[in-house]
C-alpha cells in the first residue's frame, strides 16, 4: 500500500517535475484547440457538401461519403503514421514530389510532428464531426428549407441562413463530446516524437521509476474534461427544457 502511494502520489516529485509535465500539457492544449477548431470547420464543410442537391452533384456526395467511411473506419494512430510518413518521404531530396516547406512543416515555430498531429486529428475528427452535423442538419424539418427556397433563396443561402444555424445549435453537446475524445487522442501524437503530457509523464517515470508524473497528467486532463462534461450535461438539460416548453405551448 505504501508502495502504491509512493509510486503514484509522490507529491514532491510532482512538484519537482511540474514544469516538464506542464510543458507537455501545453502541447496537449495547443493540439486540442487548434485540431478541435479545424475539425469543427472541416466537419461542417464535409456535412454541407454531403447535402448538395441534384443529380449532377452526386459524385461530390459520393466522394464525401467515401471519405467519411474511410476515416471513421481506421485508427487515428494509422492516420498519424501515414500522414507523417508520406509527407516526409515525398518531400525528401531524392523525391521532391511536394515542396519541403509542406512536407516537413515548421509553421509558426511549431515542429513538424506537431503539424502532422494537427493534420491527422483534423482529417479523422472532421469525419466524426461531419456525421454529427449531418444528424443536426437532417433533424431540421424539411419545411424550413422549403420555406426558404419558396422565398427565392438559393440552396446555399437557405443552408447558410436557415438550416445550418438551427442544426449547429442542436449538435453543440455531441460536438463537445467529440472534442473531449479528440483531446484525449492527442496523446497518440507522441508516437511520432512530440512530447505532450503523456509522453512527458512517461519520460519522468522511466527516469525516476515513479509514475506520479502520469497521475499529474491525468489530473490536468480531468481539470479540463470534467468541466466540459458538466457543460455538456447542462446544455442538454437546457435543450430538453426548451423542447418540452415548445411541446407544451399550443400551436
Amino acid at each position, binding site marked *: 500500500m505504501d508502495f502504491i502511494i509512493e509510486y503514484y502520489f509522490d507529491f514532491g516529485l510532482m512538484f519537482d517535475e511540474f514544469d516538464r509535465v506542464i510543458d507537455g500539457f501545453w502541447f496537449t492544449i495547443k493540439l486540442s484547440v487548434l485540431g478541435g477548431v479545424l475539425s469543427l470547420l472541416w466537419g461542417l464543410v464535409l456535412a454541407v457538401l454531403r447535402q448538395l442537391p441534384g443529380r449532377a452533384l452526386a459524385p461530390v456526395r459520393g466522394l464525401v461519403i467515401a471519405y467519411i467511411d474511410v476515416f471513421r473506419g481506421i485508427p487515428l494512430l494509422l492516420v498519424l503514421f501515414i500522414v507523417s510518413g508520406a509527407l516526409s518521404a515525398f518531400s525528401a531530396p531524392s523525391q521532391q514530389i511536394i515542396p519541403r516547406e509542406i512536407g516537413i512543416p515548421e509553421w509558426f515555430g511549431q515542429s513538424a510532428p506537431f503539424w502532422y498531429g494537427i493534420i491527422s486529428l483534423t482529417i479523422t475528427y472532421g469525419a466524426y464531426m461531419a456525421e454529427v452535423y449531418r444528424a443536426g442538419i437532417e433533424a431540421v*424539418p424539411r*419545411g*424550413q428549407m*422549403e*420555406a*426558404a*427556397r*419558396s*422565398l*427565392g*433563396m438559393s440552396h446555399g*443561402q437557405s443552408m447558410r*441562413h*436557415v438550416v445550418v*444555424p*438551427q442544426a449547429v*445549435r442542436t449538435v453543440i453537446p455531441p460536438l463537445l463530446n467529440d472534442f473531449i475524445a479528440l483531446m484525449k487522442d492527442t496523446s497518440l501524437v507522441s508516437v511520432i516524437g512530440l512530447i505532450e503530457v503523456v509522453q512527458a509523464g512517461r519520460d519522468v517515470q522511466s527516469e525516476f521509476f515513479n509514475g506520479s508524473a502520469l497521475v499529474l497528467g491525468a489530473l490536468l486532463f480531468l481539470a479540463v474534461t470534467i468541466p466540459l462534461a458538466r457543460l455538456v450535461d447542462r446544455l442538454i438539460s437546457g435543450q430538453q427544457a426548451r423542447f418540452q*416548453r*415548445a411541446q407544451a*405551448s*399550443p*400551436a
Partner: protein
Amino acid sequence: MSPSGEAMLELQGVHKRFGELHVLRGIDLEVPRGSVVCVIGPSGSGKSTLLRCVNLLEPPDEGRILLEGKEITGEGLRDGVNFVRRRVGMVFQEFNLFPHRTAHDNVALAQQKVLDRGGTEARDKARGLMERVGLADKVDEYPDRLSGGQQQRVAIARALAMDPHVMLFDEVTSALDPELIKEVLDVMRQLAEEGMTMVVVTHEMGFARDVGDRVAFMDDGIVLEQGTPREVLDEPKNERTKRFLGLVLER
C-alpha cells in the same frame, strides 16, 4: 373564360408521380389575374402537390405550367425556378417560420439576401407588413412566443415582402385552433380585396364561397369540377363533389 393572355397562371395537363404513386393525373386550371381560385377536395387528392408543382418545389413530370404567359416547365424549367420564386409567394400549413429569427427578421431576411434590399429598406417594409397583418407590436418576438394564428400571419407577411404577383395558400388554417382561424382568414380576405391573385387550398367552405371567384373540386389527382362558388358548392353536377360536400357540410 378570359382569354389566355389574361391568365396569371395556367396549368395544362400537369402530371406528377412519386414512384408508383400517381398523384396528379392531368390537371388543367386557369387562374386569371386578380382572381381568387379556391381548391377543395378530400385529403390525399393532390391539392398540396398541385401548389408545390406551381412553385416548382416539385417539378411536374408532364404537362405545362405558364406563369404570366411564360412556360416554366420543360425547356423553361432551367431559369423557371428563379422566375417563379420571384413572382410566387407560398404560405404553408405548418407556418415554417424560422425559429431562430425574430418575426421582423423572418420578414426581412429574404428581402436582404434575394432582393439585395438594404437594412433600412427591408426593415421599413417588414414593419409595414407586420402592421398590415395586425402584428405591429410583435415585430421583435421569436416565433415560439407567438400563437399559431400570429405565426401564420407573420408567414403571410414574409411571403408578401417579396412583392409576389401570385400567392399560394396550402391549407393555412388546418393546423390552427378554431378560435385562431378567423384572424388568418381576415388577412387573406383583405389581400383578395386589394386584388392579389390567389390560389387557396382550403377546407373552409365559407371562405371559398365568400372570397373565391372560382372553386375547383379535386379528387384522385384530377380537377373533377370547376366554376363559380355557386355552381360548384350549391349546384354540383358531379356525384363525387356532391358526396364530398355532403360529408363536409354535415360536420
